[in-house]
């Protein structure tokens, strides 16, 4: 095992602020939608907190965007544009989590500072960061001031369309968060990846990446 520096400090700060923000948004959002079913805080406090945290996560998103645009780290998000390469690689990764991991096979993906996401992660994070988060922020802003943005709301088909998109994205975020939290525990120890996101160092096998029993689809 050797340690390599994967997560630079700005990324780690951004990650934990984002994690806290998204968690608070989900909890206050559920409190807003299900007031009366459970009342951890008043409806009004939940709305006010949700609005503030929403803008905070929006600002934090810009921090992330600028960091990656103005550093050479953008490569970690560089998509694999060739389907003939991307899909087999993603299949191998999915196969590993569904079968290989149960049978002691080695992870087909080896993390490096330049390529720190496996194919499934790369796809998921791009969807989360470039589609879901901006869209959730935008619909949230429209709902925050539905009079000021009445024109845009009408253009998209009304308040109900906006709130439906916001809710469906929330469900997707909850699904993402549950999967993310589980997969984080699948490092070589239970807390290895979490520790990595705190210290910045990930522990990587010295051994070469093993060939899996996955059928070669190429």
């Amino acid at each position, binding site marked *: 095992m050797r340690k390599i520096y994967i997560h630079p400090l700005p990324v780690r700060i951004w990650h934990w602020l984002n994690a806290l923000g998204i968690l608070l948004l989900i909890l206050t959002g559920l409190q*807003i939608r299900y007031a009366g079913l459970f009342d951890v805080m008043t409806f009004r406090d939940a709305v006010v907190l949700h609005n503030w945290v929403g803008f905070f996560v929006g600002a934090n998103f810009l921090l992330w965007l600028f960091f990656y645009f103005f550093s050479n780290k953008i490569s970690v998000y560089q998509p694999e544009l060739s389907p003939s390469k991307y899909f087999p690689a993603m299949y191998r990764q999915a196969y590993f989590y569904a079968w290989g991991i149960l049978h002691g096979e080695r992870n087909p993906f080896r993390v490096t500072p330049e390529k720190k996401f496996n194919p499934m992660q790369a796809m998921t994070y791009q969807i989360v960061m470039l589609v879901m988060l901006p869209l959730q922020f935008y619909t949230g802003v429209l709902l925050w001031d*539905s009079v000021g943005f009445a024109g845009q709301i009408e253009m998209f088909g009304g308040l109900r369309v906006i709130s439906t998109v916001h809710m469906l994205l929330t469900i997707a975020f909850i699904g993402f968060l549950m999967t993310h939290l589980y997969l984080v525990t699948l490092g070589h120890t239970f807390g290895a990846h979490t520790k990595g996101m705190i210290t910045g160092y990930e522990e990587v096998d010295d051994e070469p990446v093993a060939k899996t029993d996955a059928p070669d689809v190429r």
Partner: protein
Amino acid sequence: MNTPSPASRPWNWLLAGVLALLISAPMLALAQDEDAEDEIELAEEDLACLECHDDPKLSTKLESGETLSLHISTEAFLGSMHNENSCTDCHYEIDIEDHGQGQSTITSKRELGVSMGDSCRDCHKKKYREYDDSVHALLIAQGNEKAPMCADCHNPHTVTSWELAEPEAAMPCGKCHEAIFEASAKDVHGLAQADKDSKAPVCSGCHQAHGVKAASLGSGIRDTCLDCHEDAAEKHKVWLPNSERHFEAISCPVCHAPTAERRVNLRLYEGTGKDQKQMLEKTGVPQFVKSARAADADGTGLGDRELLSLLKEFTEEAGESKTVVRGRLEVTSGVQAHQLAAKSEAISDCKLCHQSGAEPFQTVVLSMAGPDGRPLRHEVRSEVLNSLFSIDAVKGFYVLGSTRIKLFDYLLLLVVAGMAAGLLVHIVARWLFRRAREKAEAKLRERDGK
């Protein structure tokens, strides 16, 4: 020594009398001048009219069977705002030659009121224009027999300025709107009127005396509330998130009449953007009532799909402009709108509305403006607000918590339960395969060692 008292000297009295005359003479002269200015002298022909008409017993029997009093009190007329008018200014149709000779041509008091309206219009043009646009005038145009005309509120022979009238009690509105009138006398505005210096409004203060409109149409009388309560919008902004939206979609009594019953009013609009306007039923074409009844076949209120197809029908008939509904929260009756409480008693608990099953969302109506200026309504089933179809049918009305689409609650539950189950299966599988995994890992390590 005895000194005579001043009062016992006759010249002293004389001197005092002369002095008093000298001082008071100019004042008396001035007072006489003022009286002369205020005094209205009736013309000879008016005096001739009053010679007969200032008789409390003078009356005539109308075709309708009503008895019309023909008594005009000279004293009351002189004290009225019309005291400088001559009788024939208004009663110009009267022919002095045969007046009072034969049977009256007036058929009823109502008909007299309608015919005399033109006389009022001659002088009170501006007020009449306002009145022409009012719900009262529209009702009369639709043949309503009770809606008030000028003389129902203003007796032309005794009319004085409203500024001299006692507040509220002198308002004629109570003649027809009795229940509202009584409720209003007991609410925060009515009670405040006991204080003479209070600026609490009488009926016309909020509803306009002549241009009165149905309060449940348009933006209602919210703007009138804000005319006096100037800082209300700013004050609400301090504590109420999205306060502008609340001001737009909720009528003031919903929160400020805490004992009132509330409902959702889905109001029909046509057009988009700034051109959007509330739909108005055309005179003589009872489309709304007919179509709504046809769509609501079982008479239990419009369901989600029924509402959607009704909107499509209106859109098709309207041509290019799309028919949409805009929701508004309001109290269920005019009486309840006049049960306004003190500010400290107003509702500020968000949960009145923002939770599942909230009371205001249990009653829902669809409405449009009727040709007589009053709203036409048809019942809508409350579950429409929580239906998936509401995304299109009720697109402009969404209240956090209470009008949420139930299907998404189940979807959320499904995703969370599905994910949890999937992850649990993975955890169990990892535990079941732990021995095979350990063996395989040992084998790999052995191979790497070689």
